[in-house]
């Protein structure tokens, strides 16, 4: 009961607080700085200590910058789908699903910054903003590259967390890693090879695949290291076309990289149809794993490149200091 009264009190205070600095000219109070996001500009504390991240990408970004959030959404799903070199702390609170998090639980955590996505939080943005300053980003901007959006948002989060130097270093490292990967592909004589990137899953017991189009961030990453997307469907809003089994009729031999949960992958492998696909017959189907997040941040990007190279049996030129090791040393 005491806790509830306290939360209500905090909500009232914060509501008043957020109203008071929701003005257009964005002169923030002392101790606050203005940060650009999808809603325009938000005043956030200069050094936030208690961060709640409601989308896996931003969880990953925050962790990459060396901050353990106090609360995040859907930890089970995060572990199923996302794999980065930094572990999520054991005492991080699970605040519910990404689209409908438990607002009371978030309020009780007394965050000083909430980070969320426009895709999932359009409906509850006002409630979140009443709890704490809330940054909302759009990973699917109507114009411009999704990859550039990812790096910009990462830099913005770095600024908001007062870790700009670390943020820049991580992006540098990522670009360097891409370059190394490209060199490695060139050495192996595989630069310019075609690929199709897919995410497979079961939908009411039938196999369904998302095939990523040219505008997808993950495709942009693989093209940056020198591979070429063979799935030439028109760009889609979320960067993929969804096909059923029959859609494979259009796909010839290519490097077929796919992400799927292990049980689903086994289901595909057992289907008689799988063995008749050209890229399977030529042994060009590569399961990248379950937790290669194709919608993530810089660390997920490196994981994607890393598993892609491993799948193609291409080794990076210098192995003495892998980016993973650097990231671990940094945390």
């Amino acid at each position: 009961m005491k806790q509830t009264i306290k939360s209500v009190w905090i909500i009232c205070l914060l509501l008043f607080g957020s109203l008071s600095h929701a003005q257009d000219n964005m002169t923030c109070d002392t101790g606050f700085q203005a940060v650009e996001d999808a809603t325009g500009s938000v005043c956030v504390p200069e050094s936030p200590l208690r961060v709640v991240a409601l989308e896996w990408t931003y969880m990953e970004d925050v962790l990459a910058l060396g901050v353990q959030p106090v609360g995040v959404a859907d930890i089970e799903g995060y572990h199923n789908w996302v794999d980065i070199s930094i572990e999520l702390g054991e005492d991080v609170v699970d605040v519910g699903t990404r689209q409908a998090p438990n607002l009371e639980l978030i309020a009780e955590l007394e965050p000083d910054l909430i980070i969320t996505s426009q895709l999932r939080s359009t409906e509850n943005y006002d409630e979140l903003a009443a709890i704490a300053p809330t940054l909302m980003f759009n990973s699917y901007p109507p114009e411009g590259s999704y990859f550039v959006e990812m790096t910009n948002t990462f830099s913005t989060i770095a600024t908001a967390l007062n870790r700009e130097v670390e943020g820049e270093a991580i992006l540098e490292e990522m670009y360097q890693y891409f370059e190394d990967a490209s060199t490695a592909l060139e050495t192996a004589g595989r630069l310019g090879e075609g690929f199709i990137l897919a995410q497979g899953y079961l939908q009411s017991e039938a196999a369904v695949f998302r095939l990523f189009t040219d505008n997808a961030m993950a495709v942009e990453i693989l093209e940056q290291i020198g591979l070429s997307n063979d799935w030439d469907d028109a760009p889609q809003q979320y960067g993929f076309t969804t096909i059923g089994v029959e859609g494979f009729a259009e796909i010839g031999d290519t490097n077929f990289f796919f992400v799927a949960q292990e049980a689903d992958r086994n289901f595909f492998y057992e289907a008689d149809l799988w063995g008749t696909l050209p890229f399977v017959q030529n042994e060009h189907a590569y399961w990248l794993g379950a937790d290669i997040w194709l919608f993530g941040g810089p660390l997920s990007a490196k994981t994607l490149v890393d598993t892609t190279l491993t799948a193609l049996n291409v080794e990076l030129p210098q192995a003495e200091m892998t980016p993973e090791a650097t990231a671990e040393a940094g945390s």
Partner: protein
Amino acid sequence: MASKTKHGDSTRFIQSRAMLPLGLIIGLGLLVLCLAWSITLGAAEISLSTIWDSIFAFDDSSFQHLVIQTVRLPRVVAGALVGASLAVAGAIMQGLTRNPLASPSILGVNAGAAFAVVLTVFILGSPPLSVYSIAAFIGAGVASVLVYALGSMGRSGATPLKLTLVGAVFTAFVSSFTTALLVTSQDTLDQIRFWTVGSLAGRDWALFTQTAPYMLVGLIGALLLARQITTISLGEDIATGLGQNTLIVKGLAAIVVVLLAGGGVALAGPIGFVGLVAPHIVRFIVGQDYRWILPYCALVGGAMVILGDMAARIIIRPQELPVGVMMALIGAPFFIYLARWKLER
């Protein structure tokens, strides 16, 4: 009193009794045509000759043959069987309760079966496929008993209007639990859609072979009971007067309905309105004799679901609608028509 809810035999479309078997053969031919037409539709372009080969000269290393054999064929065969089962179940229910609005979806049988399946999956995780049908039968059985018992309360007994209302309330009640279970589990929205509307997407032989035997037994049982159902549909007094043990017939018919509706729901989810609409179309063609109504219903119901599924696949290509949505589009106006003109006050 009953005569107003029915057409006399003189109003039926096929006038001569001799023509009835011929009509059945023509109907069967049309159903096979629907099946074949449906098999030609799909994202992958597959020629007619390849389809022919995939059935009669199957090559298990051909992608196209496998698409036909493992994707399209199970889908249409499942559609035909589910449609036949739900239509026959609807006809039996309409005959037994002498209620033109009776059908597995209107009286809550489908909703009960769907809830039981979802509850079982929720508790057991991913149970063996054989469990699906058993759960569906229990759900369908409990729903039938509950709706009939609640609908029979009060002075005038189980009137069509009361049964329909109780069925609608029961459906709403149970469906909200189904949705609640699905929302709280980790499943995707598509699975929710499947168990709240009914769909043929992704049906394969594995589940088909688990559910089909029950539905086939149900269909045969229905045909064996057809004469007795005809008698009861004339009025229970008449049936008793003719020396029929109506209790036993009703009990057996109820088991048949549970096998048919439960099996249909276990395989394709709660597809509504087939069981309501098909028997009315069939009565218009063949009159009041259930020995003809039931086999015709099987054909018409099967064709309805297959055609509905084809429409559901074409309308928003390359996306798909669940066939249950198409059935509701056709069925809901028909329901209003029946309630307005056929239901006695």
